C-alpha cells in the first residue's frame, strides 16, 4: 500500500513537471473558459426570459456551473492521449517492466487531471465573477462544486485511459471522446434548462453522469441548495469513479496481452 502511495506521488510529480514545461497548455486553459462563458453567455442571453426557465433571470449564473463541468468533461475525455504518448515513446513499456504499481499509474493520471480541473474551475468562477455573476453557496458551495468536477474528471479520465490502453491509437481515442462528449453535453442541463426540453431528454439526462455533476454544481452555488439531491448525485459520481478506475486499471492486462 505504501508503495502504491509513493508511486502515485512520484508519477503525479512527473506529470506536473511536464505541464510546467508546456506553458502553451496553461494559456489554452485560460482562453477556453473565457470563450465558452462569453460565447454561450451572449448566444443564449435571452433564454432566461422564456417562462419556466427559472435561474432568477441571470443566464451567466445559470451557465457557470455548466461550463465548469463542460471543461472538466472535455479535458478528462482527452486524458488518454497522455497514455498514448507514453506508449509511443516507450515510457509505458518501461513502467510496465518495472515494479511500478498499476493502480498508481492510473490514480496518478487521474490525480493530475483532477488538479488541472481544480485550477480550471477556479478560473471559470473567477472570470464569471468578473463579468458580473454572483454565487450564493459560499466556500462550502465552492468546495462541493470542485468535488463534483474532480469526480466527473475521474470517471471520464479513467474511461479515456482505458480506451487508450485498449485501442492504442490517438485518432480512435479522439473519435470516441468526441462521439461521447457532445451528446452527453446536450443531454444535460449544462447550457439549457432540461425542464424546457422534451420528456425523453429529461429521462435520459437522469442517467447521464455529466448531468449529475451539473446538478451538484448548480445546487451547490445556489442560494437554497437541495441537499438531498447534492449528496445523492455526489454518491453516484463517487461510486462510478471508483468502478471506472478499477476497470481502467484492469485494462493494463489487455494492453500487455497485445504487446
Amino acid at each position, binding site marked *: 500500500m505504501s508503495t502504491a502511495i509513493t508511486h502515485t506521488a512520484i508519477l503525479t510529480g512527473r506529470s506536473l*513537471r*511536464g505541464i510546467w*514545461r508546456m506553458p502553451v497548455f496553461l494559456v489554452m486553459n485560460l482562453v477556453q473558459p473565457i470563450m465558452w462563458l462569453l460565447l454561450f453567455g451572449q448566444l443564449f442571453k435571452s433564454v432566461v426570459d422564456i417562462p419556466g426557465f427559472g435561474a432568477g433571470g441571470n443566464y451567466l449564473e445559470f451557465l457557470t456551473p455548466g461550463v465548469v463541468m463542460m471543461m472538466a468533461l472535455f479535458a478528462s475525455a482527452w486524458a488518454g492521449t497522455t497514455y498514448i504518448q507514453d506508449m509511443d515513446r516507450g515510457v509505458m*513499456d518501461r513502467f510496465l517492466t518495472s515494479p511500478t504499481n498499476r493502480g498508481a499509474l492510473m490514480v496518478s493520471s487521474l490525480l493530475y487531471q483532477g488538479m488541472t480541473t481544480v485550477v480550471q474551475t477556479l478560473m471559470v468562477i473567477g472570470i464569471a465573477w468578473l463579468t458580473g455573476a454572483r454565487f450564493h453557496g459560499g466556500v462550502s458551495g465552492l468546495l462541493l462544486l470542485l468535488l463534483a468536477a474532480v469526480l466527473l474528471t475521474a470517471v471520464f479520465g479513467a474511461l479515456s485511459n482505458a480506451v487508450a490502453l485498449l485501442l492504442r491509437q490517438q485518432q480512435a481515442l479522439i473519435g470516441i471522446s468526441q462521439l461521447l462528449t457532445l451528446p452527453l453535453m446536450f443531454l444535460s442541463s449544462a447550457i439549457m434548462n432540461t425542464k424546457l426540453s422534451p420528456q425523453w431528454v429529461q429521462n435520459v439526462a437522469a442517467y447521464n453522469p455529466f448531468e449529475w455533476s451539473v446538478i451538484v454544481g448548480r445546487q451547490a452555488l445556489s442560494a437554497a441548495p437541495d441537499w438531498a439531491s447534492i449528496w445523492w448525485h455526489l454518491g453516484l459520481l463517487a461510486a462510478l469513479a471508483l468502478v471506472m478506475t478499477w476497470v481502467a486499471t484492469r485494462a493494463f492486462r489487455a494492453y*500487455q496481452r497485445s*504487446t
Partner: protein
Amino acid sequence: MGSTIIESGSDTALAAVDLHKSYGGGRGRPPVKALDGLGFTAATGSVFALLGPNGAGKSTTVKILATLSRADSGTATVAGIDVQRHPERVRRAIGFVAQRPVTDPMDTGRENLVLAGRLQGMGARDAKARAGELLDRFALTDAARRLVRGYSGGMARKLDVAMGLMHRPQVLFLDEPTTGLDPQARAEMWAEIERMARDERMTILLTTHYLEEADKLAARLAIVDHGRIVAGGSPEELKNELHGDSVVIELDTAAARPAAAVTETVVRAQEALARLGTLRDIVMDDDVLRARADNGARALPHVLAALETAGVGVVSAAVARPSLDDVYLRHTGHTFASAQAGQAVAERAGDLAEVAR
C-alpha cells in the same frame, strides 16, 4: 540441431522453453506467428546473444522474458522466477532496455534516471546518487540537466541503458543496445557490457544485428529465424561446425544482359560446380556465390577452371576461415549483409529525419 539448447546446471539465469506467440493480424488477416517453439538457456553472469534477421522474433522473446508481453504457451524463468506466475518478482530482478527509446523526452536525463530508480523502490537520496554515478559512467554528466528531447540519438541510447541499470539488476535485457551509436561509443558500450558481466556477475541477454558484436561479447549465442532457434552455441563452436573454409566468388554478369541471361549464367555456374563436387552449401546472392570447402586454397584452382570451361567469367575469388557471417548464412539462408540492407535504408531515413528536426 534441435530448436532448444539446454545448458545443464543450477547456474541458469534465463530459461525459455518452447515459447509460442502469435499476434492478431487484424481485420481478417491471418495472425502473425512471432515465436514458434523458441527455447534456450543462459548461464548466470554470462552474455547471451540472440541474432537474427528482421522479424525473426528477437524482440518478442525479450518482451516475454521481461514480463511486458505474455507467451501463448511455453514457460520462461528469469533468475529462477517464473515470468507468468510471479511477474512482480521478475520485475525487481531485471533491467529492460527496449529496442525503441524508453526515456521521457520532456524530462531531463537526471529526472528520467531518478524516476526509474524510485519506481524500483530506491529512496530519493539513493536514486540521486546512483543517477549521478551512471551519468558519469556514460559520459552524460554535462547533459544531465538538459531535456532528453535535445539529446542526440547516441546520447539517448546511452541514457536508455543507464535507465536499465539504476537498481543494479541481476539480469539485464538489451534489445539492440548499440544501434545508432558511432564506432567510438559502440566500443565504449561493449567495454561496459563486458565489465558488467565480469565484475557484477550480471547476466545479459543481448539482441543484435552486428555479428561482430555477438562474436566479441557473447559467451553463447543463438540464431533466431521465423520464431525458432536454428543454431546455438559459443561463437567458436558455431564456426567449427561449418567444417572448412568459406569460398566467395563474384561472377561476371555485367556482359550478360537482360536479366534472363544473368540467371542463365548463374545456373551454368552452379551446374558446373555441382559436377565438380568439391564445394558444399552453395548459395547465390545476386551475382555472388558463397560456398564451403574442406580446403579452400586447394579447391580454388579447380573451381576457377570449372567455371572457365562452363564459360562463366569471374570478377573476384576469395577464401576465408569461417566467420559468424558464414554461420548466419548457413542457418538463415541469406547473408547477413543482404538481411541488413533493408534495415540500413530504414535507418538512414530515420537519421535524415533526425537531422531535419
